[in-house]
């Protein structure tokens, strides 16, 4: 049930009517429907994963109360470790078991030792990373005295599998999400219409930009051996835009849907392509995950390494980013993707400018140094996204080798020129709108335009673009597999 499918539209309309007209008497009824709706939505993908989600929620619910009530530090730590081992253990098993087995076999094979072992046919349960991060932050926050556990199991189960963010985030923290689940949501017209605008913007990014870019990038990455370097550069550029449009488009839809049901969800992207350095980029990209890792991985590491000065900071950031890379999946390409992004921080740490936040200008046109910073950051990120897209390290290195060749100075081979031009125009529209609206939560917050016909023209213009230019193929969201 993709957000962009007719099935989901029907499902959400039904949910909306029940939520605001039947189950609206108190927050307990609202939560029951939220939980049931979330589980139906989740089970629609594959019902076999639902028992794991329920089991994980049940265990962590009792662990949270146990940690809070435990009188001795040892007891608290033990319960926390049970939760961490369950969460991370399940995640490691489903994501990396086969990778470890295969790597062990090939490592022994290099010494001519044949291992008779087996791999399991493991399918990754959808959204497992995202709900595991929610349960871990819940237990850690209780342990650190930042929150009290909830004693309402429906509230906790809703928090873990919050609809519509259960599959792919944003990863909300207990401190911001749980209080919203413990009071009755009242329909707010302004919040709901703002949510609908954000959904429209997200659908535009996903169905027009990401899906159209996918047509070109799939072709370029499949035939890169026969294409000139200029085409490969074009492919890398389009893929970087595609990942952004795909994931931020998904996030916009998830946040918009949440707004319609009266729940405020953390922002996940804040115009990352206008970042002037790599630290700024990652503060603006997949904010809920990088924020989570900053608090629960990077911060403890910097505390641990704090006597090592800048070396400690470099170690902490490289480990943190390598973890982000590995989180994407068991492939050395992801490992290197994370490691490289971590290494990009080293000049900032050595110059002592890591903590200096670069402010995006208020002016319409950015100054030249800022523009150079933006272009440089985009280029650095784009090079790592080749790793992100490649099937193997060998393919990625081959792609890099062919990219840095003399054929860079030839015209790129472009299939379907009209579609390419249309996609590029839509990318310009997206970037221009996000630049002009960079101080807003999303590009369609255009209430400052007082003339309503102008606003209506913008909405319907966008709908027309979506109808006209939607790619023929409606593909999955890239981040669903993580």
């Amino acid at each position, binding site marked *: 049930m993709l957000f962009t499918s007719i099935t989901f539209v029907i499902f959400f309309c039904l949910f909306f009517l029940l939520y605001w007209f039947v189950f609206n008497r108190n927050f307990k009824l609202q939560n029951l429907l939220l939980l049931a709706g979330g589980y139906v939505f989740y089970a629609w993908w594959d019902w076999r994963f639902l028992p794991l989600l329920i089991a994980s929620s049940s265990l962590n619910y009792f662990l949270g109360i146990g940690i809070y009530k435990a009188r001795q530090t040892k007891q608290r730590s033990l319960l926390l470790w049970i939760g961490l081992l369950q969460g991370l253990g399940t995640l490691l098993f489903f994501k990396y078991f086969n990778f470890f087995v295969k790597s062990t076999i090939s490592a022994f094979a290099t010494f001519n030792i044949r291992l008779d072992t087996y791999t399991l046919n493991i399918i990754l349960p959808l959204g497992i990373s995202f709900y595991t991060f929610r349960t871990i932050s819940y237990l850690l926050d209780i342990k*650190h005295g930042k929150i009290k556990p909830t004693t309402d199991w429906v509230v906790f189960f809703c928090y873990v599998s919050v609809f519509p963010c259960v599959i792919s985030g944003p990863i909300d923290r207990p401190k911001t999400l749980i209080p919203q689940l413990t009071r009755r949501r009242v329909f707010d017209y302004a919040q709901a219409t703002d949510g609908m605008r954000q959904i429209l913007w997200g659908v535009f990014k996903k169905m027009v930009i990401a899906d159209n870019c996918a047509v070109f990038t799939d072709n370029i990455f499949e035939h890169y051996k026969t294409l000139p370097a200029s085409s490969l550069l074009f492919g890398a550029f389009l893929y970087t835009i595609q990942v952004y449009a795909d994931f931020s488009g998904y996030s916009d839809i998830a946040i918009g849907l949440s707004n319609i049901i009266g729940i405020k969800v953390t922002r996940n992207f804040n115009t990352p392509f206008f970042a002037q350095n790599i630290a700024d980029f990652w503060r603006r990209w997949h904010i809920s995950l990088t924020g989570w890792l900053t*608090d629960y991985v990077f*911060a*403890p590491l910097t*505390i641990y390494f*704090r006597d090592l000065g800048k070396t400690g900071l470099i170690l902490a950031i490289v480990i943190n980013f390598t973890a982000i890379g590995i989180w994407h999946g068991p492939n050395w390409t992801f490992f290197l993707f994370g490691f490289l992004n971590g290494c990009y921080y080293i000049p900032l740490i050595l110059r002592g400018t890591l903590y200096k936040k670069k402010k995006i200008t208020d002016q319409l046109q950015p100054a030249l140094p800022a523009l150079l910073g933006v272009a440089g950051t985009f280029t650095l990120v784009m090079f790592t996204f080749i790793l992100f897209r490649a099937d193997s390290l060998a393919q990625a290195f081959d792609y890099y080798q062919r990219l840095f060749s003399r054929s860079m100075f030839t015209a790129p081979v472009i299939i379907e020129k009209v579609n390419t031009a249309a996609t590029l125009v839509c990318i310009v529209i997206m970037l221009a709108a996000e630049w002009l609206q960079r101080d807003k939560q999303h590009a369609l917050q255009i209430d400052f335009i007082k003339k309503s016909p102008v606003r209506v023209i913008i909405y319907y213009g966008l709908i027309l673009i979506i109808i006209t230019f939607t790619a023929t193929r409606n593909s999955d969201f890239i981040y669903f597999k993580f």
Partner: protein
Amino acid sequence: MDKGEILKTVNDVFIDVLDDENIMLTYETTANDVEEWDSLNHIQLVVAIEKQFGIRFTSWEIQSWNKVGELINTISNKIN
């Protein structure tokens, strides 16, 4: 050293590390009240405070403060 003096010294450290002359901490100030105070430069502040007072916080202490008052209490317990 009383808590008022500790607060004043901590305030100076914040101004220095976060490079913002306008910071005015109170016991009730939280990270949400100071724009530049995020979890990234929280550690920078901790290291600077440790150096300033010649003390050492535990990992648990560093991650458990919710407002400046709690930080001041920890410092006071360690130096007095």
